[in-house]
């Protein structure tokens, strides 16, 4: 018989301690997924399934062991506990490796919508169809390669042998749409949009569908441009793909402690232009990145990360905090399939004071990037990749879409080259980001 998530965690902890663990933690999740996916301009497949599983972390004389099973029966949980203890017996000890004690956790509102219980496959189909149809109706040249609408309802729990015990119900309604525009032999770059909410009455897919359609249609007829070093304007998606990963990696205390972060040793130093303020808050009611407790059962602490260009804080879990004799900031992250890591919750780049139109209007020569194809190296900060859905800007005017254009530079350097941030921001899953204009970026077209 499958146990409920909280009972599964309690049983795992009890079992692991019986088997010799000094300390033990269970993190379990279970729930239901309803998903309707889109492929090649059609409804592709309806999926409904129930999933559950548990991850057991044990510490034995400061050595780590971890095991996970997708099954909440006592027999399988006991096997996982045994595996985890077996791994810990063979692992080298790790200084400061201890589980946290309990801390008081206040419930974050708006994470579970009771109406989610009545959400059906028909409802998911209606939204997937709307996602597809809105994009197709925008312009006949739009072709939707793939996408989905998904409704997930579930419960997670964490229990440890030092008194942590917490559980929470949550739901999320998310969607993705990926497509391109085709006109004769001209195939545009593909683009994608995704978003989500935790409230049934806030489900809205048309904005993503229209934004996708607009970008891909506008990038038809793209021309080559010339090489220069100068201005680029990033839309919020590109800010999330290009700037955010380097900030997220470099403020992870584990990367800092292990000598991999470009922000190591720079707290209270200026690391970016004054326009830039970044913060993280996992306690905002109803947001996708929110929860009442983190992966270790501790409350999230809202954190200023960069304030007016000055680096303020790194993100910690219990292990990295202990190494510096400080407290976890409640940023332990992850699921049932691995020990806790560190990640932001709802990361927000604060709006600036510029209109989007003026960011473009003030630009003598530059490029707008709607999607950046490439991954910045979070360690060096270097990036080099292709400009997608790009537009050439000259004398304050959008001139034409561009293709086969590359952008390269270094994110750490460019954080100091911000020449404007928009008032307007977009919420993209658990991120909030504005438009950002950067100077001195290498643009190559051959």
């Amino acid at each position, binding site marked *: 018989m499958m146990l409920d998530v909280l009972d599964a965690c309690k049983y795992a902890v009890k079992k692991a301690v019986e088997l010799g663990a000094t300390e033990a933690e269970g993190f379990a999740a279970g729930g239901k997924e309803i998903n309707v996916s889109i492929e090649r301009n059609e409804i592709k497949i309806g999926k409904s399934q129930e999933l*559950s599983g548990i991850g057991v972390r044990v510490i034995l004389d400061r050595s780590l062991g971890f095991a996970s099973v997708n099954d909440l029966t006592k027999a399988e949980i006991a096997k996982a506990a045994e595996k985890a203890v077996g791994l810990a017996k063979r692992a080298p000890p790790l200084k400061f490796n201890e589980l946290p004690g309990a801390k008081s956790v206040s419930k974050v509102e708006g994470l579970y919508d009771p109406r989610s219980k009545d959400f059906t496959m028909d409802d998911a*189909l209606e939204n997937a169809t709307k996602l597809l149809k809105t994009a197709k109706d925008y312009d006949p040249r739009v072709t939707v390669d793939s996408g989905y609408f998904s409704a997930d309802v579930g419960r997670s729990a964490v229990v440890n042998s030092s008194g942590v015990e917490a559980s929470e119900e949550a739901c999320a309604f998310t969607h993705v749409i990926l497509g391109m525009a085709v006109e004769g032999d001209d195939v545009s770059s593909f683009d994608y949009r995704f978003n989500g909410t935790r409230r049934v009455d806030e489900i809205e897919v048309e904005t993503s569908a229209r934004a996708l359609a607009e970008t891909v249609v506008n990038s038809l007829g793209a021309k080559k441009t010339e090489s220069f070093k100068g201005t680029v304007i990033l839309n919020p998606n590109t800010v999330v793909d290009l700037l955010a990963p380097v900030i997220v990696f470099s403020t992870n205390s584990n990367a800092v402690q292990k000598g*991999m972060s470009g922000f190591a040793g720079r707290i209270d130093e200026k690391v970016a232009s004054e326009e830039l303020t970044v913060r993280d808050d996992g306690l905002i009611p109803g947001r996708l990145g929110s929860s009442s407790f983190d992966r270790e059962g501790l409350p999230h602490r809202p954190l200023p990360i960069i304030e007016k260009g000055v680096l303020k804080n790194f993100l910690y879990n219990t292990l990295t905090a202990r190494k510096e004799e400080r407290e976890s900031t409640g940023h332990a992250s992850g699921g049932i399939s691995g020990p806790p890591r560190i990640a932001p919750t709802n990361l927000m780049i604060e709006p600036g004071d510029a209109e989007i139109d003026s960011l473009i209007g003030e630009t003598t020569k530059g490029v707008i990037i709607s999607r950046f194809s490439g991954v910045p190296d979070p360690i060096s900060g270097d990036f080099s990749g292709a400009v997608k859905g790009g537009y050439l800007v000259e004398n304050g005017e959008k001139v034409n879409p561009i293709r086969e254009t590359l952008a390269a530079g270094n994110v750490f350097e460019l954080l100091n080259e911000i020449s404007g941030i928009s008032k307007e921001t977009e919420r993209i899953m658990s991120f909030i980001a504005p438009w950002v204009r950067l100077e001195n970026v290498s643009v190559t077209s051959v």
Partner: protein
Amino acid sequence: MLRKCLSSFSGDYAEMRFHERKSTYIRIAAGELEDASYLKNAGVGVRALVNGSWGFSSTNVLERSAIEGSLRDAEKAAKVASQNRTEKVEGLADVKLARGAFHPVVNDPIENHSLEEKMNLVIEAEKTAKDESKDVKSAISVYSELVDRKMVANTDGAEFELHDVKPEFYVYAVASENGDRVAAAKTASVTGGWKDLWRRNEPQQLALDACDLASKLLHAKHAKGESATVILEPSLVGLISHEAIGHTVEADFVLSGSITKGKLGQKLASELVTLVDSGNPPEDSHGTGNVLVDDEGVPARTTRIIEDGVLKSYLHDRETALIFKTEPTGNARAFEYTDEPIIRMTNTYILPGDHSLEEMIEDVKEGYLMRGAGGGQADSNAEFMFEVDEAYRIEKGEVKELLRGVTINGQAFDVLKSVDAIGKDFLLDIGVGYCGKFQRAKVDGGGGALRCRAIIGGRQEG
């Protein structure tokens, strides 16, 4: 039991796939064991075709009643989805489906090697990397393995058992100096056993090589952005074959309007180029992308996507094969039991030619020699961008200095049209990590080295 559960089904088609995955993951970073995990994920995924539409459900309860419940849920989901489907699935292409048991080629099974041995290997590799060079301040070393057992039955007669083992290892070294940091990785990855995993390099050697490269990159200059002659070693040939060409010939993507739509029979590459996808490549029995039978029961085959420069075939599942009136190519793959099969590549590569690498370099007046695939992305119009781990300038037929932060870009078919030499040494070399397309998949790619024209992404003078 799966066969019995299917007997009550009355729709067009149904399949049941029991999939048990046991995986181990060990990770050391900067002298610290960050992860030592064992994961087991097992269950039955059920897919049904009813009223010309698909439904899927799964269960982690391995009992007949639960599996039959999933079949009903999949049928129900298919019926709901069919309401808003304009063009119905007309059926699935006929092909001889697999029966019996399938095992990968394994030399020295990984289960003969203890957890202690694997953990020590990761610890030692990280230590070696950190102690090797004064520039390397930090290193990460990872060993992981996926051990799969599947049993599949479908209403068209497939009934088979498939075993699969995919171990991998990598070392990642970070060199730094005066606030400047750069990383380099060396990897090993196969379908097979312990001996197969180390067939090219021992882990200690990989650690030393990663260090050496990181240290050299730290003192290297950035490349300049320009169009140039490049020689791509097999890892990058694999990346182009997979990312830039392969995705555009996945039949689902073709039907959406990818750049290769309607171009079968057209010359899209230099006639030197023959590009294939194979789940059981005759050139290498240990490709990380090996899939002896796909999840629809189609046995592995070698699909000639491009033959002598001409586009010959797309990659199909049984549904798209019927639409294109051809045979399925063994590319229907699901990552876990909770995933439905979709069209994915396996090992995608360019067949070797007759040049030695030295001969290819000799003729280049100015250009680049490139090795080691970093991250890569490609577009619906076959424009791609890849990070290159190692790029050396070539001048007058001689390999010169190493450069850093280099990417190559271009339109993949333009690049393949410009190929004027292909190397004779064959390697599959992009197996570490995963390809993402809503689900993950283990894939591989490679070939002989290519000499061609491409765009180098780099810095412009300010």
